[in-house]
């Protein structure tokens, strides 16, 4: 159930990539003559290189039986606080580690390290200030982690509702955090992100009494874009609503452990 989106993408990927193989320099499948130019059929996903690396990461996570959750949202939605509180409640029952991506600063890693979980900070300015974490960046970050010693790896992606949705990193599931201070129209404005995620957290619900946020409209829109996606309404500050969210993670992690 959690993997519905990843499987759909895998199908898409194999359809476009596998028949071509890695025949970069090989003979093209078909050629067609046009006046003045010769057309060469290519049919390759532009993100092929990323998808191949993501599949390698995925095989590694499978071999080590680590459940990988890719956490995405706009900046300031409360990802890091949500993660701090989530780690505190899951550990030590579940052995966790975190990869956190930011363009600059190690502020988030410093906050998360207090949980006792191993934390690897990625600053994408080394990689050209990228707006997302790509599969090869995750692969590099894995060098700093002992996968055999963990059950759950959470990747806190760069705060951005556009680009991270396009890049597979080899994760099992994606969670999007939407905070009530952002406005209820965010899902409609960024449908790809909300379509590609497997679970949504509606955060900062402790602020609802002070805002004009139309909670029902937000939930209805999420349901239109991604019917039946679990939505957990939480406050990372007060930990209200955390139990169903934690239960979802525990179930997902257990499902990947050996029987």
């Amino acid at each position, binding site marked *: 159930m959690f993997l519905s989106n990843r499987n*759909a*993408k895998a199908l*898409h990927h194999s359809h*476009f990539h596998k028949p071509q193989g890695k025949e*970069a*320099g090989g*003979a*093209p499948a078909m*050629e067609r003559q*046009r006046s*003045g*130019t*010769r*057309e*060469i*059929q*290519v*049919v*390759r*996903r*532009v*993100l*092929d*290189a990323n998808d191949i690396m993501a599949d390698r990461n995925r095989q590694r996570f499978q071999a080590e039986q680590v459940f990988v959750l890719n956490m995405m949202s706009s900046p300031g939605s409360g990802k890091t606080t949500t993660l701090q509180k989530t780690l505190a409640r899951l550990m030590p029952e579940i052995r966790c580690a975190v990869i956190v991506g930011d363009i600059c600063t190690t502020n988030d890693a410093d906050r998360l390290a207090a949980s006792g979980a191993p934390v690897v900070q990625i600053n994408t300015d080394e990689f*050209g200030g*990228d*707006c*997302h974490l*790509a599969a090869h960046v995750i692969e590099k970050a894995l060098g700093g982690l002992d996968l055999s010693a963990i059950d759950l790896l959470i990747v806190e992606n760069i705060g*951005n509702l*556009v*680009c991270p*949705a*396009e890049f597979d990193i080899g994760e099992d599931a994606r969670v999007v955090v939407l905070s009530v201070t952002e406005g209820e129209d965010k*899902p*409609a404005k960024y*449908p*790809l992100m909300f*379509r590609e995620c497997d679970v949504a957290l509606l955060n900062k619900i402790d602020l609802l009494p002070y805002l004009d946020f139309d909670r029902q409209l937000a939930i209805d829109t999420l349901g*239109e*874009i*991604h*019917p*039946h996606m679990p939505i957990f309404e939480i406050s990372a500050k007060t930990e209200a609503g955390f139990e169903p969210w934690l239960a979802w993670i525990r179930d997902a992690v257990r499902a990947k452990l050996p029987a």
Partner: protein
Amino acid sequence: MHEMGIALEIIDIATASIPADLAGSKVARVNLAVGQLSAIVPDSLQFCFSIVSKDTALEGAELVIDTRPVVAVCKACGHRWTVGKPVFTCPVCEGSDLTLESGRELDITSIEIAEEA
């Protein structure tokens, strides 16, 4: 926002796709399929492509972007429709288990190489 990286990937794939017997030829056109659900801004991609193609076999090449609509097929009743607004529920049976036939493309479909005059 990541159009620069996409433009660089396009140049890598297109360059690698030039057949050996045409090595050294200029690419006149790159045909790209971009689904409406992909996170790409065509104008921005065109701009990045024009910059990063300098001094490559793709310098001056035209980037033709074929925008593909979001087309869904309901797994329950087989209804096939073009998704106009972001509502992913079958209008016939209200099923939500769908296959996206198109809309997520970011594919190079072909390159066109200029013939020697």
